[in-house]
């Protein structure tokens, strides 16, 4: 079994109007090489589900998003994401704004093949006002509590960046927080994984390595070898976030052309070279919070 695919194979399996879930969290372990590939392509009108960071911002800057399903968009140390802000303030995207936990619940419902999961979260807030499609459900038990029926967030495709994978799609997320990537993979019809390293199954480290295998390979459609593929976001323990680059990216909301011609519309290797090379990225220390 060999699931290794090229960037071209990957975009060929995407189409206009798809719902795409992006793993990671804020400026942490985002599959940025896959996002940049989508930005290069003709694909449009996407619905994007994300604990958002520069993945959302970059897609906004390229006008790829029709609708964003989100709880936040942030670059962590730079709290507000300038490209996303601009898209919102100019009313360029539709939004389904949810509590972070509601996003998780929606993915979990999809992962479990359920139509919805009940939650108290969202009651008493404008999440309900601005999402009139959210319905209530009453507890069938004696408490009869009225809850929100958080609908399943079914994904056509999930994009996830991992530390290691073999050719069969046995992946490992070695960083301390796997975020909600497992649920993105389970909620999706297809999952594409970009990986810092592609190794043999033996090199995954047996039982000691297997505890980092956060979801099983049957969920993985394609594997892309993408060293430093999360840049400029962090990929613990390999490298931290590139603050200098994130600042430049952030300021590029005013005039995107310059940023774009310097760093985008390139192959992954050309991109890495344009931002200083993999050695420089691998030497960026992990952030301290």
């Amino acid at each position, binding site marked *: 079994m060999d699931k290794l695919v090229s960037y071209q194979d990957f975009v060929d399996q995407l189409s206009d109007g798809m719902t795409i879930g992006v793993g990671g969290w804020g400026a942490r372990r985002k599959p940025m090489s896959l996002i940049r590939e989508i930005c290069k392509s003709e694909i449009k009108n996407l619905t994007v589900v994300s604990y*958002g960071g520069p993945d959302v911002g970059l897609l906004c800057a390229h006008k790829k998003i029709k609708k964003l399903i989100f709880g936040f968009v942030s670059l962590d140390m730079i709290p*507000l994401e300038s490209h996303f802000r601009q898209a919102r*303030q100019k009313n360029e995207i539709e939004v389904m704004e949810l509590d972070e*936990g509601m996003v998780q619940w929606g993915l979990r419902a999809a992962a479990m093949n359920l139509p919805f999961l009940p939650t*108290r*979260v969202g009651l008493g807030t404008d*999440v309900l006002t601005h999402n009139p499609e959210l319905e209530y459900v009453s507890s069938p038990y004696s408490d009869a509590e009225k809850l929100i029926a958080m609908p399943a967030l079914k994904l056509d495709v999930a994009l996830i960046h991992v530390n290691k994978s073999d050719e069969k799609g046995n992946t490992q997320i070695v960083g301390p*927080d796997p975020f909600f990537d497992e649920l993105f993979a389970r909620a999706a019809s297809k999952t594409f994984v970009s990986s810092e390293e592609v190794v043999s199954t033996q090199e995954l480290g047996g039982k000691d390595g297997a505890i980092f295998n956060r979801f099983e390979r049957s969920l993985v459609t394609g594997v892309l070898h993408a060293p430093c593929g999360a840049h400029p976001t962090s990929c613990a323990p390999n490298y931290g976030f590139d603050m200098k680059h994130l600042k430049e990216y952030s300021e590029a909301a005013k005039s995107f052309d310059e940023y774009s011609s310097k760093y985008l519309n390139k192959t992954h290797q050309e991109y890495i070279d344009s931002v200083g090379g993999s050695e420089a990225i691998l030497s960026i220390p992990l952030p301290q919070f």
Partner: protein
Amino acid sequence: MSESISLAEICISASSKAWEGEGEILATGIGLIPRIAAGLAKLTHNPDLMMTDGETYLISSPAPMGKRDISHDQVEGYMSYSRVFENLWGGKRHAMVTPTQIDSLGQTNISAIGDYNSPKVQLLGVRGFPGNFINHKNSIFVPNHSVKTFVKDQVDMVSGMGYQNKELSNGKFEIKLVVTNLGVFDFNGANNNLQLLSLHPGVSVDEVIENTGFDLIISSDETTPLPTSEELSCIREVLDPHGMRNSIFGE
């Protein structure tokens, strides 16, 4: 103490009282003053509090602000984001947060300012506010007490629920303490109105009234207590050795 006591230190000491008597729960202070305050609570009156290293691990002593030698962190447990969600749904957490807007009902906003469809200012999004406020106690720190923060009408995008919806939360909703650059408050006035508990040194009642967009109850003429010498040494020597707190009010 030769060094004079700063406003930031007064706010940290006052904010740490949010976790008084809260028992063995997860204390989350989001932002500089709340985080130092949570650490101070753990070092002084509530050693049972659980705190993270700011990321994924529970550690035995509060993580100091700024650069530190993380090899000194005594890791005692695990708190990934997924586990934070599980924890907060169970209610065993008390967070102190800084909303952009707060209204007379205790509703809070960190999502967007202005018209929702094309906001004047897009902020973070509601983040975990809907889940936090309906599932566990929260407190609030406001560095710039003004009519823009304590708004006259309803907040623009209700992210955290308010007192009028308390029954929806299974009785768990409470905004325990509100600490600002002017004073200390809670929502325990009649009809859950915001009420003044104490004014920081040098602040007048009129200043508070002028800078609050809605009516509040003035039933106290107390002055916020200064931090004790024990608290000051915890803040200055242990929790914030680089003096990052001084940036909050430009001290």
